Every structure is written in structure tokens, then in C-alpha cells.
């Protein structure tokens, strides 16, 4: 018997006391999926919770986004180079170039070593979660592959107010199609951090040490 058959046989032997074979009938789940939390100010709560993680959050009108992105890069200390995903808004890219920074578009893909030498990354986002201060990337063209928002030390992330939901279940539903289409997700709550030494939270280990979030208002 190969390992698969043997493990399955052991499981079936171990569960002979369970006679109802339909999991949904045998073990009903009473939870209501996809629910949100009642809150007065979803965007405000989102901002507050993201700031709780020591990230910087600013708000900008749509028209001012190119300037806001450049300001964000400067604020995080990006001095020379920026990597951007293929689908990033062209106006933002132009503004970054005009500000004197070298822009690497990730097409063809940069090597890991090149990414390591790049100061910052600018991406859009898929969903924001107010209750937990989380940004979800579904790695569409305006967010790029996973390594882009990981290896450079500074991450400037633009999220629209209509992308922000109250709680985790709503966010899970919003990116469901992306997962069914086989795309990965990255959930980001503040910058990289660790509490491994004496449980004292230290910001910045391997992921971007500076997270700068721009909320794009209508």
C-alpha cells in the first residue's frame, strides 16, 4: 500500500464511529459569512488602525495623487531608485521620474539582487480593512508580483476610499475572485515587525521597514 492509501485507510479506520458521511449534515456551521461591523467612519477607522502600526497615512484628492506619491517617496527617504509594477498609473510614474528618481518598471522582471538594491516600491492595493488596519494586495498589474512589495525597504501604497471595508470577512469576499483565478494574496498590516526578543515590538525585519499609505479620496 502506498503512503496515500495507508494514511486514508488509517483515517477511515479512526472515524468509523462517524456514520453521517455528508460533512454539511454531520457538522452544521452556524456562522453568518461575509458580515461587516457597524462603524460611523470606515475610512477614518482604517487610517487610525494603520497608524497604530507606526505606518504613515495621508489623504489626497485624486488629482493630487502624483504629487502625493512623490512626497511619500521623499518622506520615506527613497533617494535614488524606485521599482513600479507594469500597471501602475502612468501619471504617478511620470511624476516620480520628474522628481529625479530612477524608475524601474518590472518588465522584464528585475532580478532579486536588483530589487535588493532598489530604494522603494510604489503599488496600488485591492482592499483595505478598517477594523484591523490591513491592506490586501491581490497582485493585479497595478500591484505587481509579490517580491516587488517585499524586497525594497520602503513601500508607498495607494488605496482608494471605495476599496476600504469595515472588517475581515468583507475583505475575504472582495478578493475571492482573485483567489479563484489562482492569484496570490498578501495581507499587510503595518511594516515588517518582530516581537521575538523579550516580546518588545521592533519594526522592520525583512519586509519593507517603512510603509507609507496614501488614501485616495474622490
Amino acid at each position, binding site marked *: 500500500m502506498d*503512503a496515500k492509501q495507508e494514511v*486514508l485507510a488509517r483515517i477511515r479506520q479512526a*472515524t468509523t464511529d462517524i456514520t453521517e458521511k455528508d460533512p454539511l449534515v454531520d457538522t452544521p456551521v452556524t456562522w453568518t459569512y461575509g458580515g461587516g461591523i457597524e462603524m460611523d467612519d470606515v475610512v477614518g477607522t482604517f487610517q487610525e488602525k494603520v497608524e497604530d502600526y507606526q505606518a504613515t497615512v495621508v489623504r489626497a484628492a485624486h488629482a493630487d495623487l502624483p504629487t502625493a506619491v512623490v512626497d511619500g517617496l521623499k518622506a520615506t527617504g527613497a533617494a535614488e531608485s524606485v521599482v513600479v509594477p507594469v500597471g501602475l498609473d502612468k501619471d504617478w510614474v511620470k511624476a516620480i521620474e520628474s522628481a529625479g528618481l530612477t524608475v524601474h518598471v518590472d518588465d522584464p522582471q528585475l532580478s532579486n539582487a536588483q530589487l535588493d538594491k532598489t530604494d522603494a516600491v510604489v503599488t496600488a492595493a485591492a482592499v483595505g480593512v478598517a477594523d484591523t488596519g490591513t491592506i490586501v494586495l491581490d497582485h493585479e498589474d497595478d500591484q505587481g508580483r509579490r517580491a516587488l512589495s517585499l524586497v525594497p525597504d520602503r513601500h508607498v501604497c495607494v488605496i482608494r476610499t471605495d476599496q476600504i471595508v469595515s472588517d475581515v470577512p468583507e475583505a*475575504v469576499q472582495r478578493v475571492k475572485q482573485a483567489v479563484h483565478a489562482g492569484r496570490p494574496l498578501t495581507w499587510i498590516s503595518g511594516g515588517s515587525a*518582530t*516581537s521575538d*526578543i523579550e516580546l518588545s515590538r521592533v*519594526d522592520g525585519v525583512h519586509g519593507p521597514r517603512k510603509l507609507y499609505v496614501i488614501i485616495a479620496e474622490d
Partner: protein
Amino acid sequence: MSTQLRRISEGNYGVARLTPAPEHPGTFLGMPKFTKAVKDELKLPVQRKNMRNAMTTIRTKRATRVAESPDWEDLRQAAFEIKNRVERHLDHYLLQAEKSLTERGVQVHWARDGAEANQIVAEIAKSKGVDEVVKIKSITTQETDLNEYLEEQGIAAWETDLAELIVQLGHDRPSHIVVPAIHRNRAEVREIFLREMKNYGRPCPEDVSSNPPDLADAARLHLREKFLRAKVAVSGANFILADTGSLVIVESEGNGRMCLTLPDTLISIVGIEKLLPTYDDLEVFLKLLPRSATGERMNPYNSVWSGVTPGDGPQEQHVILMDNGRTNVLADPVGREVLRCIRCASCINVCPVYERAGGHAYGSVYPGPIGITLTPQLRGMQDPVDRAMPYACSLCGACNEVCPVKIPFTDIIIHVRNKVVSAEKADRFPKDPEVLGEMALMKTAAWVLGDYKHFESIMYGSRGVGRVLHHKAIGPLPVPVAERWLKYRDVQAPPTQTFRDWWKQNRTESER
């Protein structure tokens, strides 16, 4: 700038090795049992202080975050139901997960035990021609002692989680499942980094301070070259979503994301119970796990990926579905409830025994309430280490209250104690002298209490002792076992009259 792989003898008990040698083999078998091991651990005042500080902090953080969630009890109930569904229909969901993963380009392997899982990892790594792999923190691979197996096979396994790095470089063993280096303080970490990093890669800066940010920075630099050159990564998984074939990793530092995205090949060893039926179920666990584990609203990074994504991350992926005793646990309708565990460690963080003993005394990679319920069931109850484990508990029940998947720990602990006693009875000649003594004592007690005549004759014996002592208290006496009690306590002399005698004398026939 990049440092090469070298064989190092220093600190490795004279053996030239690729990675630092741990103090004990991972199985922990042959170690002293808890009741003995704990005595040495309790003598470490620095460790006890570190543990008390850390556990107090983490308990408070969790309590704050849980209090923020008005639907906490509903979430616990949902998690309880979802995980019950999985464990009761495990064959169904495993086959569904295998199908979904395969459709997403993942090669699925099955492993009966840890040895088989380790072999599969080594074979894949060798087929890629690599002599090193980077690792995401995974208790499952500690359970199989993967690092030591790979070392024997000439492959260096680098731990990349900060705490695991501290443990690995410190020739140590993890003492907690979420924060494995919790028994170390900043000064100890600095010392380990200065002494060991230079042997295994980029050295720690000589002028490093003992401030956590500086130490974290040293780790960042030490590990970055390993991430950038790694071709193969090994991970566990927090969850597998059966319907979409997705794996989920919940982490803080970004070392997980590095391992999941930069190498060409990714191998994930996952216990067969780590399934969730559907993608939708994730919402319950992403709310429960971070608040229970580190007391955060959400941990810094969660990764969800569904097999191979063209142009993004490892293009070759393997998932090893491992049993390693889990079906033994499943076979026990009482004991199987521990299979709901999502490894948040909230039970460990509230455990008064764990806080004082630390994680090393248990003799398992799983310490605390989850450790003493899960390990003896996983490994069987043949070794004295496993038999002693369920007794590392005062049955206070704090763990029952915090568990996000509602594992009734104390019920299971009593149940496992029962199984230990049955296993001891089945041994005709117990190897453990304490067990032998206890069994003799219990047999005697059974004889005495089994028949009123036996009881009476013993009472008469005690009356005899009382008459000899004549109201004089019993002080220290060189009698085995009783010596330890009598050293600190005087025992009143037994009465010179038994209650039965008194009753007969003071009551008439009709009153009796």
C-alpha cells in the same frame, strides 16, 4: 561580500557541521521526564524572570484585543464547528485538497511519518543540486527533526525567523510554539549573535548593542544573503483551503514572504489536520488567530497562494501531507478534539505551570496544555517522557477559557492520564521505580478499602501505633518517601481509639 557554506566544529561538540548542533535530539526521547527535568529548569532564575515578564505582557495584549471583538464567542463557536467538520471528514477534505492543489500545479506527496516526510524533502533538495535550504518557522518540521536529518544528508537548513535563528545559533531548542526564544533576554541574544553568526554567514557587527532593533538589524543583514541566494525553501502552513488549493502562512517579519517568493522551489510540510473546507472559512480564522497568538488585531503579513503563479514566486511547488501520529489522535473520540488546534499558543501563555517551568522541561516541541494533550497521543505512551507529560498540569482550566477553537483541555488531560495508567498497568514490570511504588501503594489501598474487615484491621494497627506514641507528634523520620513530608511537618500521633470503637461505646444498639 557573500559568505560561503563551511563546516564548523566550534561549539558543535567536536563535530564539523554545516549548521549549529542543537543540545538535544529533536525527539526529546531519552530525556528526563517532566517531573525530573523541571527541577533543573526551576533553578534558572534568569529564565524564570524572562518567562514571567514575557507571559504577563502577552496575556495582557491578548485580553485587550479580545475585549475589542464583540463577536468573539460566535467566532470561537464557528471555528469549533469548522474544524470539527474537517477532522470528522478528513479523508474527504484531504482528497479534495489534493485535487485542487494538483490542478494548480503543485506536486502532492503523502507521508506516513516524520521520517518519510524528511526523506521526501531531502530527495527534492538533492534533485535540485542544492546544499542549503531556507526555512520558514515550522513546528511541524521540528516535530520531524528535519534540520538534523538534512544536516546528515549534507544539506544546511537555515532558520529565518528571528526567534528560530536565535535558537539555532544558540545550539538550543525552541521553548514556545509562537515565540520560540522567549526564554532568552536581549543580552543573551547579543552574546549568541556575536559568538555564532560569523561561523555560519555574515558576521554580526562587533559594536552591536543589546537593543532589540539593533539585534533585529543584525539578523536582517545576516539572513539577506541567504534569502537572495536560496534556490529551495521549506515551509509549513497555517491552513490549506481544500476548495481552492490555497496555502496560508501567517507571520510577522517577512521572512516567510522571502521564502515563499524568492526561491525557485518551495516544499511545504503540512500536518493532515491543517485543512479548512473552503476559502470562505478563512475569515473566521484570520480574525481569531492573530488576536489569540500575539495579541494583535492582525499580524504584519499573511500570504495566501494557490499553487504556481506564472511569473511570480516558486515555479515548482511540493506539498507533503503528513500523518506522523495524527490518525492515532483521530481514533480516540475524546482525544481527537485537540486536532482542532491552530497553534496560537494562547493556552501556553495562560498556563501557570508553563510560565514557571519554561518550555524545555516537557520533552516535546509542543509544551504547555496543547503539548501535554497532543504529544502523548501523537507519539504513544511507551516512553516515560510521554507518560509524565499529562501530569504537568494543575487542572486550573485557564486554557479551556482562552482556546479559540474551544479545546476542552482539562477533560482531555484527565482522559490521557487514564490512558497512561492503562499503559502502565499493561507493563508487567514498570521500568520507572516511582511508577512501581505508586502501583504497589494503589494496590494496597484497594485491598484496605475493598472490605470493611480489612479497613478495621488497619485501624486497629494505627490504634496500636497511637498507644505506643502516646500523644507524641511524629517528627522527622528516616523513612523512604515519608521522609520528605516529615522533614517540614509534624504529624499528630494516631488516636488511641478508632472512631468505630468510639461509636460502639457511645451509642446504644438502637441509635446505631
